[in-house]
């Protein structure tokens, strides 16, 4: 395994081929050289990272291993609260989010031996699909300069792709892990709702928020998820289900796995190169033993509308104070989105929550009686050029973001696990990607499918030239 991957780096540290200090210094050298272009970081914590690395190096020398991620450098979206570092949530206010509770998922990774390099750039308040940020700089796409990195976990995805860290934590309310993963050519996992605690992370929409890993490979994401997942007394929505060892069965292949390609909605209006790449990936999985068929799924537009309404209402409730007291601090597109939420009636919000339950039961029952995994494009088009997007009027910009996230948002409403996996490049060199969606809490199968595909297709061995 290459030490460029999280799994390879963890193994290299354990085998003493590379020390935690060397791993951190390697990352810092890349960041110092290139982050003025990418803007992946809001706050780089060089001193903290090197101090932690030295302590972990001493532990390793004494034979004390903290956990499976001993010495592995990670980055954390700047809505994960960690003591000692401010949490801006992408706003202009350094300490926008103050919490007595550290982000449980991030803390678990650090307790397992990971090293925090700092806090990562994101779209303001985690709203926005493209990775632009007027306060902290637009995050650039590592593959083709000037193109969107995707949002809202823009720094998480771009930083992994640029080799700044081995993995990152992102959040996903309508696609905010999977969209930047798709734009930047890395793996991103939105776990099942409740699989990973959200305690200590900024709320955008408590009904739709998910935390999850971004990394180069499905194996890397499996290692991170194993540590991040599990019950948490600080988050009542965190499931008490046992957490599987996602990496242990990851080499089991896909023989007999029933994969469904949706006949409706998910390929409609999708760019030709994107659609062809996803169908080619399905063909490769079939060649590896999976059974691929077409399937008509319950119309996702109903769930998309329901999820959008719930998100808007909850986001406006949570962030009402900054909207009312300091609206000038917010970017116009964020103000516009919050404004809509204030106009939603309690009747519509509560009906939407009731509808969510009904639509989820129907989707799970109908789809997963026929297939084990749904395979769809994750973004409808490759990462668009950012400057023309930003030149649009606010309402048009937000409408474009809604269209860009229309393939991911239904699965936030449904709460189903969804894995974004790179599956090629356009002629212009931009990443293409698919999304694999599974039954509730069946992340193991998605990660196994992603790993099997990556090992066969090999796209993850290609890296962007960032220097």
């Amino acid at each position, binding site marked *: 395994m290459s030490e460029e991957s999280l799994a390879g780096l963890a193994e290299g540290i354990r085998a003493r081929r590379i020390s935690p200090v060397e791993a951190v210094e390697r990352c810092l050298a890349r960041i110092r050289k290139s982050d003025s272009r990418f803007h992946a970081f809001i706050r780089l914590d060089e001193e903290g990272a090197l101090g932690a690395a030295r302590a972990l190096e001493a532990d390793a020398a004494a034979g004390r291993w903290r956990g499976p991620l001993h010495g592995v450098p990670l980055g954390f979206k700047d809505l994960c609260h960690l003591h000692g570092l401010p949490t801006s949530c992408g706003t202009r206010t350094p300490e926008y989010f103050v919490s007595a509770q550290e982000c449980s998922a991030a803390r678990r990774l650090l307790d397992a031996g990971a090293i925090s390099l700092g806090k990562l750039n994101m779209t303001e308040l985690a709203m926005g699909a493209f990775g632009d940020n007027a306060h902290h700089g637009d995050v650039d796409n590592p593959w083709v300069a000037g193109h969107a990195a995707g949002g809202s976990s823009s720094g998480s995805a771009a930083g992994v792709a640029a080799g700044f860290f081995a993995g990152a934590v992102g959040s996903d309310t309508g696609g905010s892990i999977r969209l930047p993963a798709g734009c930047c050519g890395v793996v991103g996992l939105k776990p*099942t*709702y*409740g699989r990973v605690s959200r305690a200590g992370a900024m709320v955008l929409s408590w009904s739709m928020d998910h935390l999850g890993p971004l990394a180069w490979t499905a194996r890397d994401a499996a290692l991170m998820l194993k540590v991040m997942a599990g019950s948490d007394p600080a988050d009542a*929505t965190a*499931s008490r*289900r046992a957490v599987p060892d996602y990496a242990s069965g990851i080499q089991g292949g896909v023989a007999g796995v029933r994969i469904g390609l949706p006949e409706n909605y998910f390929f409609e209006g999708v760019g030709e190169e994107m659609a062809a790449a996803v169908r080619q990936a399905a063909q490769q999985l079939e060649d590896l033993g999976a059974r691929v068929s077409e399937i008509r799924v319950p119309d996702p537009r*109903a769930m998309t*509308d*329901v999820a*959008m*309404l719930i998100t*808007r209402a909850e986001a406006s409730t949570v962030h009402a104070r900054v909207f009312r007291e300091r*609206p000038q601090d917010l970017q116009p597109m964020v*103000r*516009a989105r919050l*404004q*809509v939420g204030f*106009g*939603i*009636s309690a009747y*519509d919000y*509560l*009906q*939407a*929550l*009731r*509808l*969510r*339950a*009904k639509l*989820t*039961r*129907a989707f*799970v*029952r109908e789809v997963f009686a026929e297939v084990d995994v749904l395979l769809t494009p994750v973004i409808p088009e490759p990462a668009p050029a950012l400057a023309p997007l930003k030149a649009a009027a606010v*309402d048009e910009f937000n409408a474009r973001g809604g269209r860009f996230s229309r393939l991911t948002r239904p699965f936030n409403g449904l*709460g189903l696990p969804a894995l974004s996996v790179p599956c090629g490049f356009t002629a212009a060199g931009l990443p293409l990607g698919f999304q694999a969606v599974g039954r*509730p*809490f069946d992340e193991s199968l998605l990660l196994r499918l992603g790993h099997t595909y990556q090992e066969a297709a090999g796209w993850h061995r290609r890296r962007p030239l960032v220097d």
Partner: protein
Amino acid sequence: MEESRQQQVELANMAGIIERLAGELALGEEPARFIAALEGLGEDEDEAPRDE
């Protein structure tokens, strides 16, 4: 701060969609059944909607 014309249209559209879909809801439907669906708990079948 007032809603723009497009925001007003968006709100009206969302309300219309909810009104149309909510007609299919059964009396026993409630938000907690979402978690139950994910955890595989409770009834899998939907009860028929009734006039309220």
